């Protein structure tokens, strides 16, 4: 088992994919955080109905929002998602899956080892994302003379949960990739749903007033995990928001989605003929 895990981790780090995507993601995360930080003190984010504005003044919730901006925007979550999909589908695309199962014929050993490798690379991405976001957001806040709130425990907790969310999103992609196998189809479906599908569903649920349904969308679950303090300083009625009030409940549901995909994918992978 130890050997299989080392092998899977080496697989990740011996192609250009991991650092190419990492670089792109870090750049985007930094820029989005920087952009969010630039909004502080403006009325750009103000809700015309309620007057609630997460950027009105710096508070802990605003800091959580800025330092996880890429994730909250459901944008940088595309990177761990795509990465997870690519790590498994590339084995099928390049038919290296045969060599993998020939060296380790017990398929569950391969799947567990791959999962470990996915968690490891997901963690590397997560930490990089946090650093880039804090650098981008913090620099802009400091430049504009706002408090960075980087000494606050709840801000750090949010960054920590961000790392967990990241790893979960990588596993989500991995599980989905096992089910679909076709690389192009898997990437298109996963990214398409996260980007366009979720926006569309959010609009539909808002129009139909199905807030309860919107709370179950992966992107909203992620935001619910990360923002534990109301950035509008109490101006928003939590019952109208598409997020569960407890961050851990959101986390549990997201992990549940991941487990379902990963287990279904594993069962199929263990049974399927490799032709």
């Amino acid at each position, binding site marked *: 088992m130890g*050997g*299989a895990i*080392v*092998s899977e981790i*080496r*697989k990740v780090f*011996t*192609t*250009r*994919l991991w650092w190419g995507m990492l670089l792109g993601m870090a750049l985007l995360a930094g820029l989005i955080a920087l952009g969010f930080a630039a909004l502080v003190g403006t009325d750009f984010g103000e809700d015309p109905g309620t007057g609630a504005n997460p950027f009105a003044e710096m508070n802990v919730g605003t800091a959580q929002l800025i330092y996880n901006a890429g994730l909250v925007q459901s944008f940088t979550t595309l990177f761990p998602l795509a990465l997870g999909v690519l790590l498994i589908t*590339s084995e099928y695309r*390049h*038919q*290296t899956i*045969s*060599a993998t*199962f*020939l*060296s*380790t*014929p*017990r398929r569950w050993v391969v799947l567990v080892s791959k999962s470990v490798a996915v968690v490891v690379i997901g963690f590397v991405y997560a930490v990089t994302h946090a650093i880039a976001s804090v650098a981008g957001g913090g620099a802009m806040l400091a430049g504009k003379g706002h408090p960075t709130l980087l000494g606050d425990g709840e801000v750090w907790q949010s960054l920590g949960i961000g790392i967990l969310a990241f790893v979960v999103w990588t596993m989500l992609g991995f599980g989905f990739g096992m089910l679909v196998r076709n690389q192009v189809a898997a990437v298109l479906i996963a990214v398409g749903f996260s980007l366009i599908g979720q926006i569309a569903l959010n609009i539909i649920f808002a129009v139909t007033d199905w807030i309860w349904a919107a709370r179950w969308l992966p992107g909203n679950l992620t935001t619910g995990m990360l923002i534990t303090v109301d950035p509008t300083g109490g101006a928003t009625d939590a019952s109208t928001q598409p997020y569960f009030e407890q961050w851990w409940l959101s986390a549990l549901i997201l992990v549940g989605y991941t487990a379902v995909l990963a287990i279904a994918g594993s069962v199929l992978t263990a*049974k399927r*003929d*490799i*032709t």
Partner: protein
Amino acid sequence: MTGETTTGAVGSSRIEVDRLTKRFGDLTAVDDLSFTVEPGRITGFLGPNGAGKTTTLRMLLGLVRPTSGTATIGGRLYHDIPSPMAAVGSALEATNFHPGRTGRDHLRVLADTTGIDHRRVDEMLEQVGLAAAARKRAGGYSMGMRQRLGLAAALLGDPQVLILDEPANGLDPEGIRWLRGLLRHVSDQGKTVLVSSHMLQEVEQTVDDIVIISHGRLVQQGPMAELHGAGSSLVRTTHPEALLTALRPVDVEGTVQPDGSVLATTADLQLIGDVAHAAGLPVHELRQVATDLESLFFSLTESLAETTEETDD
């Protein structure tokens, strides 16, 4: 103890395929196939494209689940071999490489699974002649280089059994010569070598035993020498009967063909020429006739194709 180990080693490297069947939906890719592959010999696994060779090998290696029957190596299913790379080395036709990973890293990834020292990786790259390209991405490798990398991967664990699917594909004549030498070297160590091919000429001079399949069924199995059959020659002369009489004392039988030529039961053209010369008979044509395995190979597979078609009707 030593004796036991030796017996164990030999026992652990015999391949046994027993009533193996695989159906993909309506298609029967492998149909009640049984054969054995012995250690210390090179066995050619032959059949036209689509005969079911790759499917058979994939079932043997645990990649495809048989519909029924078993395929074992040393009495064990591939799944149950504790350290498979050290027991069985394989290179499958479709075993490709990640184009962005170097040849060396590809082997290192495999070596890790079995705890094989990375020095062994570099040795293998040297042995298959890929040392210079080791740090280049496999995407830029030629077909011949891919075959060599696949072979290096198969040999990595110093296995007792070598299973290669179409290893000569893409190799130049020099590469094929090199492959022959390598396979002979491996089998001389008492190891089992199974090599598939859709072309008889490729393996004709390499293998000791052959297993021929067509449409997923066994057509022939046995030592190459037996199946090859005696060679024969065709002679054209002015007096065929006189030539037959002259050949009898040297133990060569012959028959006169409808077109007046003589078909003699020897591949020794020099002998026939000498006999004819001694008998004062002019030789107008003298050549070997292809009753070698090549025509056997085709006639066997062709006849099976016909019977299958008849059964289908």
